[in-house]
């Protein structure tokens, strides 16, 4: 009943999709980290109206479903604003905005958790504001936000699967396409799930390990 050859044959057929999934993850994460830092700093240090706008922006991306965000970008941008985005660009942009919103909340909490005396100490040693931030506050905050950031990475890796609904040829898309070609539904989908499992499991374990190692005890 479970046709093993079809199962084994699925993996090579998924290879090109896997590359797209990895490409998307590797592209989105660094961009999201930078944007998240900008958002967190804006919310913490920018003047009132600007900080408010940044908060609203973050809330918007956090409180709506990712799939809906991707659809909105892909379908509404061209029809309403005449901005024709290739599917890959649209979903990459959507993922960057979504992931950075969650990361920025984490960064903000991490930076705020470093006592203000640390900044003062830096300043009194003759550092400039930016030196005090990047040399004193940021390194300490980073070790506190690292575990959450790692689990966000795993989340992102899994969530790239949603791009398959907009015909970006990622891992999931390849499997669903193959299924309609050979009708080996159970074999193909099981191979798909197993591929994600083998790739994400070590990442999840690594993030668990970071949680244990970086646990803050004050």
């Amino acid at each position, binding site marked *: 009943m*479970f046709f093993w050859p079809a199962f084994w044959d699925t993996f090579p057929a998924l290879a090109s999709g896997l590359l797209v999934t990895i490409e998307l993850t590797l592209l989105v994460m660094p961009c999201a980290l930078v944007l998240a830092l900008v958002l967190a700093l804006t919310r913490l240090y920018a003047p009132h109206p600007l900080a408010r706008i940044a908060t609203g922006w973050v*809330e*918007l991306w956090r*409180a*709506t*479903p*990712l*799939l*809906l*965000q991707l*659809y*909105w970008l892909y*379908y*509404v941008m061209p*029809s*309403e604003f005449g901005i024709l985005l290739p599917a890959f660009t649209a979903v990459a942009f959507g993922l960057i905005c979504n992931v950075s919103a969650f990361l920025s909340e984490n960064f903000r909490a991490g930076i705020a958790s470093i006592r203000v005396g640390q900044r003062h100490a830096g300043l009194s040693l003759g550092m400039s504001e930016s030196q005090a931030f990047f040399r004193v506050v940021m390194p300490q905050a980073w070790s506190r936000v690292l575990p959450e950031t790692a689990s966000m990475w*795993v989340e992102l890796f*899994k*969530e790239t*699967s*949603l791009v*398959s*609904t907009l015909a970006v040829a990622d891992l*999931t898309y390849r499997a*669903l396409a193959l*299924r309609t070609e050979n009708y080996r*539904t*159970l074999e193909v*989908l*099981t191979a*798909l*799930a197993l591929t*994600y*499992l083998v*790739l*994400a*499991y070590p*990442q*999840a*374990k690594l993030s668990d390990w970071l949680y244990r190692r970086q646990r803050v005890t004050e």
Partner: protein
Amino acid sequence: MLDAFEIVRKNLGLLGHAFLVTIELNVASIALALALGTLMGIGRVYGGRWAYRVLGFVIDVVRSIPILVIMVWTFFGLPLLLGLRVFPAFLAGVLALGLHSGVYIAEIVRGGLASVRTGQMHAALALGMSWSQAIRRIILPQAAIRMMPPLSTRLVRNIKDSVLASTIAVQELFWAANLLEGETAKPFPIYTTLMVFYFLVIVVIARALDRAYLRVAARGAA
């Protein structure tokens, strides 16, 4: 620009009905996830070394697979595995969401139970309570309060993930929106309305859960 939203107003019946499906889907899957998560969490804390390892492995496996893949596998693959001819999409959606949220809740429950000091369990047993009484009356009520913030996050996440059920043709809100978009080719009013609607629903629920937690937080303090 406002005229564009006429299309939404005309189809409020369809969308309203679909919203009911979204509510049903979430209520059912969250109930399943809570039941599953509580059992697995208790199993991990009190089930001994093997239960701890086996359940931990199951949890890690489910955590490593995207919810979309779990959903598609449950709808298309599971009935083939079980030899079923008919498998309702709604049931597949509930099972997939319930399992996925359930394993995350299991970890929350485990953390909550482990945070209650062992003296509490000893005291309850010393008073003559059975093991299950002690868990139900002494340990869980204290743990439950501490579990509330991460549980709220998970619940909200479940609502957001529930739109993925549209991919297996569960006729929920996002499915109805896509149907409407397909018929009218007016993505802007339809998806924007949906975006605002989800935002409001989720913000209201998240705030309500926060308030509820703040009211009881003091009683959960260690």
